């Protein structure tokens, strides 16, 4: 194994520190234009360090799957540089194929074969040495909870079971990098949670994961960093919390005793005290106030004190962070442009 470019990632502190290590994925100015002129990917630049759980988000048709197909050597880029595990996808396609696992968007298992036979075929396809096959097959069946149905034809499996088998097949050669293209689409919440556990487990043992998903909850739950693609280009990137911060708003609901009249009074107090900046919106509701502001959380205690001083009794208080849904809507909406540069360097104007 000398000369290998893969280094195990043993602790989370090493994650994201790309110094001296080959990035798992390196994309520079990727272009993919079909011969009919369709520009599926216009200009994508991104880097995924080893060991990271990376989320790749975007609306349908944004170029997610096309980008993944380039990364797994199914499509050759028409422009730019793409390296996977240090290998150029064009000139070193064979090396790329050996070093990655790929779970396509459409479930792909051989329905006439049993779960065990499917995994065995994948073992052969990825050159897992004969003496290690039996052990690895058992281990994978165990990992994806299919051990008790290992000798049943996969054609009779539920959607979730097939997906789990598919995932196991992508991992027979213990690749250092796996691509999961919308792995939980169409699954019920229970099956989805099971897969999530499984993905976390493989990431914990050092495997870099690139995940595409339409479920923002999924990206929020699993991913350390995200990139959002729209119209063939990256429009936002960062950790889930960074992205949420970049949307720059928090939601604060305050319930007061006395309903709408008191609420109006409370709004006056807030305005008089100047608790929130000019960019905040304070809305009077039947129950109290609904405030949208960049810094709602940190101003909460001042708000409480001010209302208390004014003799207004607060009966309920709730701060909500933006969800990734809010981020997604913001960055995939033409009107809002929050596309930052690299990392969190540039922020949206409103934040302090």
């Amino acid at each position, binding site marked *: *194994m000398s000369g*290998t*470019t*893969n280094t*195990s*990632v*043993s602790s989370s502190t090493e994650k994201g520190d790309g110094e001296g290590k080959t990035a798992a994925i390196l994309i520079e100015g990727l272009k*993919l*234009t*079909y*011969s009919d002129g369709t520009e599926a990917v216009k200009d994508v630049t991104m880097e995924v360090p080893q060991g990271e759980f990376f989320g790749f988000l975007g609306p349908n048709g944004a170029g997610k799957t096309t980008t993944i197909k380039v990364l*797994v*050597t*199914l*499509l*050759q880029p*028409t422009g730019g540089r793409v390296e996977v*595990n*240090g*290998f150029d996808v064009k000139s070193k*396609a*064979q*090396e790329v*194929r*050996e*070093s*990655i696992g*790929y779970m*396509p968007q*459409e*479930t*792909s*298992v*051989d*329905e*006439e*074969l049993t779960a065990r*036979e499917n995994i065995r*075929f*994948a073992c*052969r*396809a*990825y*050159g*897992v*040495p004969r003496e290690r096959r039996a052990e690895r097959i058992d281990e994978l069946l165990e990992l994806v909870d299919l051990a008790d149905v290992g000798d049943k*034809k996969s054609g009779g499996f539920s959607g979730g079971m097939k997906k789990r088998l598919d995932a196991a*097949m992508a991992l027979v*050669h*213990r*690749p*250092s990098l796996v691509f999961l293209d919308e792995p939980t689409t169409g699954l019920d919440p229970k099956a989805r949670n099971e897969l999530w556990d499984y993905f976390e487990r*493989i990431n914990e*043992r*050092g*495997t870099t994961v690139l995940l595409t998903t339409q479920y923002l909850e999924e990206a929020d739950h699993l991913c350390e960093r995200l990139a959002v693609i729209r119209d063939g280009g990256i429009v936002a990137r960062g950790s889930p919390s960074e992205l949420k911060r970049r949307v720059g708003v928090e939601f604060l609901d305050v319930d007061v005793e006395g309903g709408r009249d008191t609420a109006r009074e409370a709004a006056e107090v807030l305005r008089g005290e100047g608790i929130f900046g000019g960019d905040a919106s304070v809305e009077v509701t039947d129950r109290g106030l609904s405030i949208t502001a960049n810094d709602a959380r940190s101003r909460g205690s001042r708000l409480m004190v001010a209302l208390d001083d004014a003799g207004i009794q607060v009966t309920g208080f709730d701060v909500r962070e933006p969800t990734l849904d809010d981020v997604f809507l913001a960055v995939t909406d033409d009107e809002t442009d929050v596309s930052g540069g690299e990392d969190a360097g540039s922020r949206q104007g409103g934040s302090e």
Partner: protein
Amino acid sequence: MTPGAESGTDGVRLSRNTFAGDFWANFKRWTVKSTRNPFFLFLSLIQPIIFLVLFTQVFGGVATGAINSGEASVSYTTYLVPAIAMQVALAAAASSGIGLVNDMEEGMFEKVLVSPMNRTAVFLGKTASELLLILIQIGIILVLGTVLGGEIATGFAGAIGIMAVGFLFSVWFVSLSNILAVVSRDQETTALGANIIQFPLLFISTAFLPLDALPGWIQTVAGFNPVTYGVDAARALVLGRDVMTVIELNAFGGIWDTLVPAVSVLLVLDVVVGGVAVYVLKSATSSSVR
């Protein structure tokens, strides 16, 4: 301890895949798939067997006269066995493309393309498994034909020869079925396409009656029909004499006057149609943007 066991990944490594290993993996996969569905295996035998039994019963009396013009008497069963053997090959070969389309629809095709397996080995393994199946089916027909009273004049060696002819005869039709599969990418079209041309191919050939007994235009078409060459070669081996009348040769003597031209025609056909299939499959598996 391996580095893989320590870090939980095998990391990047040099290829352990070999051409033979990749071939075997795919050969085994497709063979297991066909044994998994024995119904299908025998289903493709049913129609040819019905043909063998019905044709000998219904047309036996009439046809025997037509096939025994001047020569030593031959039963219609004996005459029909080589034709049915080729029919089996046609029917089985037609399903090759269906397997490919099914793989495309199931996503296994893409999965294989992403793997480090050698693509030539992948297709050779699949084709070899299908050809093995065809040989077994031809064997079953030969045994059945013998049980029903047919005779193979050239004996066991001749039976092996018939299988070899069946092999050559299958390659072009397997190729055609795969071309249909890649072009249509649709199961129904692939299945129907191959099935629809099967019957005209069989009837407009020397399969059921000798060339002289066929109407003029059919004689002309039969001369360009690959089935004629497959059936004539197999029939020469069953009857132990030169049966070919499309191409008259006397240079080699006996059955070789049939075998040499027939096998040559089949070989050329295999190379040409096989070449097109390779080209079509290559473009289907290419990662170049289309």
